[in-house]
């Protein structure tokens, strides 16, 4: 490190710079610790982002990104005129709405119920049980439902037949796809979803409840005026995270449920990208489809974040 400021009195600026150089030098081992992880993010997260430019190309694997021909917005143009586009757009949006409107409130309600109880052993037992499905893969969750819902020997159809109803072909039905999807989401994630709310509720000062009781508040009013306001910011943060997640995480799950009979309602952006891209080899077109989806996801999260800030909450990012 050559020091330029030996003779003249060092200006504040150069002094800051040399302090900074010293800090960098002192922390060089810390940088060494960060480098492998940083490399991971660059190679497997940022290079694929750069790879999105093939959606503006006619990408040919043997020519690579540098050699492939540029085609401008052609693939996006094709996407918006594809009759399949509105189907998958609608399907994705509906699953998104089911997640936000039906799934999202359930862990809050469960956590409120658990929080009302003073029977510690009972609470702990229930918690232990309802967390279990979160650790099962989607393959296991979907397999369990398939085994129970199938027409040949599945318990649900057997029960339907026993009570004199006709059997239902749940797994190949367009009408049943969405209910089955959201029930599986609820079964897997509702219990686990309570964990953060319960932690936030545990941090509430008991004096607040005492004060509310002095004022004659019933238990419902205590929940309304003490518990809910206290977890409001957690709810907002989780809602924003959920909005960001939904468009991403549906794939592993829906891929397993999708079959030739329910395609009209089950095909979403990700499954379409998979089919068009990896099975039919339309790399550029399917990348354009994926790009559109990721972009919409980003906009949704940013809007949610902006709204939450506007309403006086902190937001996430």
């Amino acid at each position, binding site marked *: 490190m050559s020091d330029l400021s030996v003779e003249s009195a060092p200006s504040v600026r150069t002094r800051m710079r040399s302090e900074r150089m010293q800090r960098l030098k002192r922390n060089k081992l810390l940088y060494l610790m960060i480098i492998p992880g940083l490399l991971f993010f660059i190679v497997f997260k940022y290079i694929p982002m750069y790879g999105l430019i093939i959606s503006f190309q006619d990408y040919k694997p043997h020519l690579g990104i540098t050699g492939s021909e540029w085609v401008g917005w052609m693939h996006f143009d094709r996407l918006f005129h594809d009759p399949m586009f509105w189907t998958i757009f609608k399907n994705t949006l509906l699953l998104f709405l089911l997640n936000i409107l039906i799934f999202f409130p359930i862990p809050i309600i469960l956590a409120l119920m658990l929080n009302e109880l003073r029977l510690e052993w009972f609470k702990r037992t229930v918690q232990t049980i309802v967390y279990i499905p979160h650790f099962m893969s989607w393959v296991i969750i979907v397999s369990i439902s398939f085994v129970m819902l199938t027409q040949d*020997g599945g318990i649900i159809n057997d029960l339907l037949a026993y009570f004199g109803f006709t059997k239902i072909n749940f797994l190949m039905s367009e009408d049943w796809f969405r209910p089955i999807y959201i029930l599986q989401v609820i079964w897997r994630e509702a*219990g686990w979803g309570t964990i953060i709310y319960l932690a936030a509720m545990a941090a509430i000062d008991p004096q607040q409840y005492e004060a509310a009781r002095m004022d004659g508040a019933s238990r419902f009013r205590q929940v309304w005026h003490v518990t809910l306001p206290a977890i409001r910011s957690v709810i907002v943060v989780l809602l924003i995270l959920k909005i960001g997640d939904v468009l991403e995480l549906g794939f592993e799950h829906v891929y397993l449920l999708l079959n030739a009979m329910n395609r009209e309602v089950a095909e979403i952006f990700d499954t379409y990208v998979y089919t068009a891209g990896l099975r039919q080899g339309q790399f550029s077109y399917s990348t354009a489809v994926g790009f559109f989806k990721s972009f919409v996801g980003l906009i949704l999260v940013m809007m949610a974040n902006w709204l939450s800030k506007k309403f006086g909450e902190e937001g996430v990012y």
Partner: protein
Amino acid sequence: MVQDRSFASRILDAFIILILILVALITLIPFIHVLAGSFTTTAELARRGFVLFPTEWSLTAYRYIFSTDTIFKGLLNSIGITLFGTLFSMFISSLMAYGLSRRDLDGRRTIMFLVVFTMLFNGGLIPTFLVVKEAGLIDSYLALIIPFTINAFNLIILKNFFQNLPEGLEESAKIDGCNDFGIFFRIVVPLSMPAIATISLFYAVTYWNTYLPAILYLNDTDKWPVQIILRQIVIVATGLSFDDSGFEDAALPPSQSVKMAAIIVATIPILCVYPFLQKHFAKGALLGSIKG
């Protein structure tokens, strides 16, 4: 807290307890049904339907699925991927998290932004596939590990945990002549065991449950993890999948009890680590994890 002992309040408690018992039963019954079904004969399943406790015990289903080495190989693959993947992920993630937890590090905020941004936006399936392919990982076990080395969420939890350790410890270790690696391995890691255990188990569960990367990156069915084999047995062989890649004998769909046995085999290892998980996430390793 003073308990409200009024009649209405007790009714409310009873109601809540009832609902929660129902919730717990709904969570457990499918597992119990599948477990019981896997230990009985298909004949009994067909006759009694709703089996929660078999009257006719039988290991036929398990004998059948272990009669070929498909599932066994799948289990071995999954165990290998899980062990190696978890160690690798923990090593890279905790080092990076520790570096980022030190407040005097220049560029820390920029790197954190880069990390958080990947949670909001990504290149998606095809560009990622092309990178994995360029990296020569296709048909390698590493394709299920290296592209998933760090989960940004886990990284942030670890970073926050390290950040909340008392700073004086590091100072005194420095005076004793420890460098940053020494501080990390000799002081920070032993003090952070709850967080490290929790995140290790999170990674382990993710690796154990992995299946989509195997569909994308592994054509060699000998390397398939147990989750895909389960998918083949329960979903593909029954003709319920939209792409039946690589399944040879779809002629006769497996019986209910065979499917149930396969589900149990793929589930048991998770249930074995669950008590350890349970112990740790109660300790608040997750607290304060939401904020970056």
